[in-house]
């Protein structure tokens, strides 16, 4: 009967602590949000399942000898996975709207205010008992306001790996909540007349412009902000593969095989950071609150900048497209379009909002690079 005893001691029930059980519940909750509420399912399903698997007692799947622990080491500690996803994002993104109207980059810039305001928010939260964020942790939380999953994972894996799980979950959850979070802010900050502004059609963009665009962005980044170069570099590389026209095979590989395989592995690996001692504490609540704060501020800043550009151009810019500057491609652009059509059903803002939308991707990568240069690692 010794074996029965040994076997009982090897069961999950005998070894399960409450933290693990709760975190398995959190994993199931994330999958529920993904499947039923359609919260970024491509990421939240693997993250949630990774949390489930890595909180199974005894098995050690997320440990140094387990599959997911090894994937984390190879793909996230090294920084490789978020960068490969950024390459795929570049290969999937059409920057034409931005090239046709470069001024929308300013909307992408304004929306990053959410990031820096949250930095202060995190420091202020330290005033409450139970919160004690370092500067690196504050910066990692703030980047949630960039509304860009891979950027958030990249920065957090460098500055605050212990918080990676909570930050990734918050980043993707809020990206999914864009259609809920943004519209009230957008309506509150704009007048009926502003929301009705019809923008003039964009000029067509030549192939040569689209091919030179990645080089212009990369070289400016290399000269001024090299710490953002890994992110911007892979983004522009993917975009060049897309636009080059002569490397179809590679473009398809970046848009499909690589990004899909990496997404599965990255999701599972991020899930391995959802352990009770790292996630079930007051700081996670702080991260969720600050993340929501960052999102709201970013949206508001984008809309305000849109209003400024509206005045400056004599009413040629609809301020609603400023909200798309947070990135969350293409959902934020769709939200801008939808809120616009509430006022005027015949006003199609989608294409106009794509400019600030993709500008937001560049803007948050730039902000991440800045934080890396100023704070760490």
């Amino acid at each position, binding site marked *: 009967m010794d074996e029965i005893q040994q076997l009982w001691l090897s069961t999950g029930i005998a070894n399960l602590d*409450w933290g693990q059980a709760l975190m398995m519940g959190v994993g199931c909750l994330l999958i529920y949000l993904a499947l*039923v*509420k359609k919260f970024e399912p491509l990421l939240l399903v693997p993250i949630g399942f990774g949390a489930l698997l890595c909180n199974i007692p005894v098995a050690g799947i997320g440990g140094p000898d387990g599959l997911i622990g090894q994937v984390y080491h190879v793909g996230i500690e090294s920084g490789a996975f978020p960068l490969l996803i950024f390459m795929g994002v570049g290969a999937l993104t059409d920057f034409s709207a931005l090239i046709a109207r470069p001024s929308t980059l300013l909307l992408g810039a304004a929306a990053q205010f959410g990031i820096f305001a949250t930095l202060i928010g995190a420091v202020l939260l330290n005033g409450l008992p139970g919160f004690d964020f370092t500067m690196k942790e504050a910066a990692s939380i703030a980047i949630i306001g960039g509304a860009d999953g891979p950027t958030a994972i990249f920065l957090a894996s460098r500055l605050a790996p212990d918080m990676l799980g909570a930050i990734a979950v918050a980043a993707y*959850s809020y990206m999914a909540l864009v259609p809920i*979070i943004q519209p009230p802010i957008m309506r509150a900050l704009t007048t009926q007349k502003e929301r009705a502004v019809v923008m003039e059609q964009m000029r067509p963009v030549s192939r040569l412009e689209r091919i030179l665009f990645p080089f212009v962005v990369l070289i400016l980044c290399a000269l001024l902000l090299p710490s953002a170069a890994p992110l911007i570099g892979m983004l522009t590389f993917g975009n060049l593969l897309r636009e080059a026209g002569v490397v179809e095979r590679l473009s398809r590989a970046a848009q499909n095989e690589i990004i899909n395989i990496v997404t599965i592995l990255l999701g599972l690996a991020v899930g391995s950071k959802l352990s009770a001692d790292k996630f079930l504490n007051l700081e996670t609540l702080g991260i969720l609150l600050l993340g929501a704060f960052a999102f709201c501020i970013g949206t508001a800043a984008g809309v305000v900048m849109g209003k400024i550009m509206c005045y400056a151009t004599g009413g040629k810019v609809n301020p609603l497209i400023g909200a798309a500057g947070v990135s969350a491609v293409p959902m934020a652009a769709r939200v801008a379009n939808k809120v616009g059509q509430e006022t005027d059903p015949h006003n199609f803002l989608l294409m106009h909002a794509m400019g600030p939308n993709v500008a937001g991707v560049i803007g948050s990568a730039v902000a991440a690079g800045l934080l890396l240069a100023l704070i760490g690692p």
Partner: protein
Amino acid sequence: MNESTLLIESLRLMVIGMGIVYAFLLLLVGVLRLMSSLILRLAPEEALPLATTPTQSPSSAPDDLIAVIAAAVARYRRQH
């Protein structure tokens, strides 16, 4: 370990092993039946909204998320 010890050991393994395989899968039979009957009662066919309908319902979700996590945190802190 000499040979007869190995043999006894392997007989033991067989009995325990098959016993547990059966026990585990029997339990799984029960749980699966329970699951199916619960689903049949609580969410009869075609009532499930999953994925087929482009649901527009995440309206209450942020509160959900924070509420559930807050509860989980509270529970966890009580235990430790």
